[in-house]
């Protein structure tokens, strides 16, 4: 019988965003997105939790070196931390930067970097927008 071995690393970043669908009228945007549609955006302290799955290497005792995971996450978050996501991050030029979409984009970016380590697979991305709201994202 197999055992599941998971490692989760957390990292905080701060970003601002605005919910706005350019295909809709101003009235519809305000109706759907409410105060999140404000013209100048607003900010959050996001908390990202990245969970990886793998076998524990007999020599190192690790699934992945935490320093390696930390640097992967820090590199990816450079384009998110202290940025206005709609304006500064190319992934949200045509994508509303909701927590769901940010989690999806982060999954892709982190998975691409983790591909260099075949022993360790991305298992789940959990993104807290505030302490009482989070999104889980994984690929089935």
């Amino acid at each position, binding site marked *: *019988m*197999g*055992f*599941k*071995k*998971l*490692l*989760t*690393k*957390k*990292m905080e970043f701060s970003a601002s965003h605005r919910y706005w669908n350019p295909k809709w009228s101003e009235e519809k945007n305000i109706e759907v997105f409410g105060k999140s549609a404000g013209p100048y955006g607003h900010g959050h302290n996001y908390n990202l939790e990245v969970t990886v799955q793998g076998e*524990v290497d007999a*020599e*190192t*005792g*690790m*699934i992945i*070196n*935490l*320093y390696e995971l930390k640097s992967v996450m820090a590199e990816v978050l450079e384009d998110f931390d202290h940025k206005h996501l709609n304006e500064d991050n190319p992934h949200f030029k045509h994508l509303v930067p909701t927590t769901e979409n940010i989690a999806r984009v982060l999954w892709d970016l982190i998975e691409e970097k983790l591909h260099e380590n075949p022993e360790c697979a991305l*298992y*789940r991305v959990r993104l807290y927008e505030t302490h009482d709201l989070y999104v*889980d994202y*994984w690929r089935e």
Partner: protein
Amino acid sequence: MFDTCSNPNGHGHDYYVHVKVSGDINPETGMICDIEELDGIMGPIIDELDYKRLDLELPYFEENQATGENIAKFLWQKIKLKLGDKLIHLKLSETSKSYFEYYEEGNYPYER
């Protein structure tokens, strides 16, 4: 490879162990598992590690690196002997920013 973790004099963490138990509610006690009994099981196991230099004072960690992954496995095996099928999930927090999980595949209903 191990960076600051390879300091010859070691380093410490305040670990937290979380175990999840599952089972039927005993109709007499209304409990799955008596918390005092659970404390009585986990206390001595944690005492084996608490305030110890793991890689020097415990034979298990002379042979296995004292990583979070291996400490989680060590704890799972020890607690499993006492709790049996009731134990379904173990989580070991190393810092407020990282934690490890260990459980049997197919036997934990809250995957992800």
